[in-house]
């Protein structure tokens, strides 16, 4: 008993620094943010400016069109980027795994956008998207599209422009995760199925896809979470504009808190965002039993 206690104590000692760090920097702030979300607080007035306002922030946001538009954009962003990223990264991973010339350099180049800062990448894409003479529209005109979109300056196209860039940036990272999943599939399963007369396409759907399902599940969850956390690209490229066309929750929360100093309101929206991410993850977790084979 005494030995067990001593072990337990030593164990706690090893995780203590992280416990303090995460407690102070993450857990307590999360709880504190919940408290602030029930207040009306302009932080310029200092801590004594806090007034409790009940659920006011939580009811008010639904008639704030910046909030509702941001939420809508978030959903559009998730529903478009997640499948695109998953399909492209799976296909590139399968291609690389199948055997190609120059495997290492190809993998490296496709992975490159992930290591580069979103801030720098956004600056480049903003120029590539220039409506009048930007490289992308120059190419589009060259191939015969007379009136290419105005991209970031056009409310109808701005979100699409950011979606394209985000998919571009995320393929490499998820491809590497898929590659690891592919390499974990035993080779003899392919041999067995080819003896049974299955072709490459058939093998892909009856061996690769089912055995890859745990990886697919992981990629799906992380892609959804990341899609709701998109911020730097919006901040650098459009600041949510034109109008509200590219505003997302993370951006509007940042603005409400640090440009308008509405700390209570910003915290309430942040909690709604957390709740959405949490719910989506739970639903996926429950749903996985139907299609994930471990």
């Amino acid at each position, binding site marked *: 008993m005494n030995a067990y206690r001593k072990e337990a104590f*030593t164990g706690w000692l*090893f*995780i203590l620094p*992280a*416990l303090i*760090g*995460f407690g*102070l*920097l*993450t*857990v307590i702030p*999360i709880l*504190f*943010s919940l408290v*602030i979300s029930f207040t009306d607080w302009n*932080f310029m007035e200092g801590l004594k400016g806090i007034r409790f306002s009940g659920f006011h922030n939580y009811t008010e946001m639904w008639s704030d069109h910046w909030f509702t538009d941001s939420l809508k954009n978030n959903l559009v962003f998730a529903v478009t980027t997640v499948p695109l990223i998953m399909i492209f990264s799976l296909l*590139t991973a399968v*291609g690389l795994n*199948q055997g*190609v010339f120059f495997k*290492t350099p*190809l993998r490296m*180049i*496709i992975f*490159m*956008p992930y*290591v580069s*800062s979103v*801030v*720098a*990448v956004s*600056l*480049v*894409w903003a*120029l*590539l998207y220039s409506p009048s*003479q930007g*490289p992308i529209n*120059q190419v589009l005109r060259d191939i015969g599209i007379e009136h290419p979109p105005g991209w970031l300056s056009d409310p109808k196209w701005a979100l699409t422009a950011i979606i394209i860039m985000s998919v571009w940036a995320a*393929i*490499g*990272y998820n491809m590497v995760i898929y590659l*690891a999943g592919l390499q*974990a599939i035993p080779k003899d399963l392919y041999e067995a199925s080819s003896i049974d007369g299955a072709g490459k396409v058939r093998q892909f759907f009856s061996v690769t896809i089912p055995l890859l399902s745990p*990886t697919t599940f*992981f990629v799906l969850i992380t892609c959804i*979470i990341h899609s*709701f956390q998109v*911020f730097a690209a919006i*901040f*650098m490229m459009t600041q949510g504009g034109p109008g509200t066309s590219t505003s997302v929750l*993370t951006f509007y*929360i*940042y603005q409400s*808190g640090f440009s308008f100093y509405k700390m209570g309101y*910003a*915290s309430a929206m*942040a909690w709604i965002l*957390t709740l959405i*991410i949490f719910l989506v993850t739970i639903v996926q977790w429950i749903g996985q039993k139907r299609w994930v084979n471990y």
Partner: protein
Amino acid sequence: MTWLKNNGLKLFITVLLAAVAATMLLPFLWMLSTSLKKQIDVFHNPMIWIPAQMQWNNYKEIWLGSHPFGLYYFNSIKVTVFSVIGAVIISSCTAYGFARFEFKGKNFVFLIFLATMMVPDQVTLIPRFILFNYLGIYNSHWALILPGIFTAIGIFLLRQTYLTIPGDFSEAAKMEGANHFQIWTRIFIPLSKPALVSLIILSFTWNWNEFVNPLVFITSKKLFTVPLGLTNFVDDSGTNYPQMMAAAVSSILPVIAVFLFGQRWFIQGVASSGVKG
């Protein structure tokens, strides 16, 4: 002809993937090329890929002129180095605690750590902002280093590796009178070198590229990190695009270098954080 027959599929896939790779590479090449152009040539039609006269002045202006990127670089290096060292130490000892001990509440604490990854930065920003003000580290590099040190992914990554180290090793060391601190530093750390290198490289990249924390917690220009320095170019009417691209190139150069140098570990790190599921 037989070569083509045997390698036809391989060649075909290579061509397809080369097209994907070109899509990934072209924006970077355009950035590099534009950083050496004159302002009037940026949107020249047809596109100029290799400027007739390389405008190295753009870099000089970024580093030594109106935008003090030399200083931003110094700040980024400082913040990144301290964050990485801290993250490696904390992740490693926490991972050891999780992997080698059984105690009540362990799984619960681990679950909490796991859950913190789901929470978006925006939830903790405001309370952290208040906390840092209270601690007197708002608008100082500590406000960036502290959050950089505590990384849940780092803990998972090393815990994964530590779980694969056979129990016999530590049992044998215990027999010879080694305590846990010695087992951790003399057996687990040396045996997990590849995972440690992965963590160092990944955490270098994350910290170098970190944007939200500096944006909120740093206000003095002299404390700006490189990504924050890049915001100088947003909404700046009459922006000098070549200089902006020179700054962008400067900002990604260190991570690209580290990536080229250590891509094996980099990819291993990403892969093993994902395989866990």
